[in-house]
């Protein structure tokens, strides 16, 4: 009985060929699809391209950050140089005044006498 039912089911559920027209309709529908979506990129390449893009973006961000830091270091050096020049100028001015005062000490005394 079971074997009989098995056999009958095998016979009843035999595969059916939809025919050559079906094949043509499928190929027509595929031909109507836009070219770019026909063959998708293999997953490995997709991950590789994502990794490369991420790498490029990271490298650009790091380069930008380094450039900003370099600029800030330059500005800081400039500020320090200006400060050093200012201090040097003040010292030279002081020294000039001291030397100048030492060179004419008598003028004040003479004029006072």
């Amino acid at each position, binding site marked *: *009985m*079971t074997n*009989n*039912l*098995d056999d*009958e*089911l*095998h*016979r*009843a*559920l*035999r*595969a*059916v*060929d*939809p025919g*050559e027209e*079906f*094949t043509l*309709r*499928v*190929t027509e*529908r*595929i*031909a109507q*699809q836009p070219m770019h*979506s*026909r*063959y*998708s*990129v*293999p*997953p490995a390449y997709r991950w590789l391209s994502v990794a490369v893009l991420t790498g490029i973006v990271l490298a650009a961000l790091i380069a930008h950050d380094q450039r900003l830091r370099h600029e800030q270091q330059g500005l800081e050096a400039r500020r320090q140089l200006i400060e050093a020049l200012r201090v040097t100028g003040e010292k030279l001015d002081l020294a000039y005044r001291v030397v100048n005062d030492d060179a004419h000490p008598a003028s004040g005394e003479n004029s006072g006498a």
Partner: protein
Amino acid sequence: MTEADTCTTEDSLSRALAGESAAFTALVRKHQCLVYSLGLRMLSDRHKAEDLAQDVFLQLHRSLASIESAAHLSFWLRKVTINRAIDRLRREPRYEALLLQEGVYLGSDASDDDPLLQRRLRDLVGRLPPAPRAVVLLRYQEDLDPTEIARSLSMPINTVKSHLKRSLAILRPAAARPAQLRNLTLPLARNGQ
């Protein structure tokens, strides 16, 4: 599938991946029986089956790069066809169990190939709930064993065996003598599950 068939499919697969449309057409031609028949038996409608089969092949065309071998291709086609068919059935209105006509014997007494009985069996299989129907189709149309069916449907093997056993218990009276046919109902078909 014979070794030669496998080689041919592998060859068509690699050529289709390289963009050769004739190779993809060969793949369609080779597997259209499988896909269309599963769709037909699942949906019990030629137009819906053809529509489903076309959608499956279009999806295959888009996913060709993910197919690893000829065996994987058959596995993929079965899985996608059954899943799509079950999705469609879930969207359709539910149906009620039918009472078979009392005392009508659907087969002839002694015949190896009984068209009436086969038609009735197909009809009954088409009235099984989607999951057991898929199990019966993969078992008797595709000749898969329970382990392969479980893998194809992502279902525990015990569930597959249970679906098979219960479905056969429902189908068995259809191939039986008139005395066994009285008041036969199809309780599984009531909830669409």
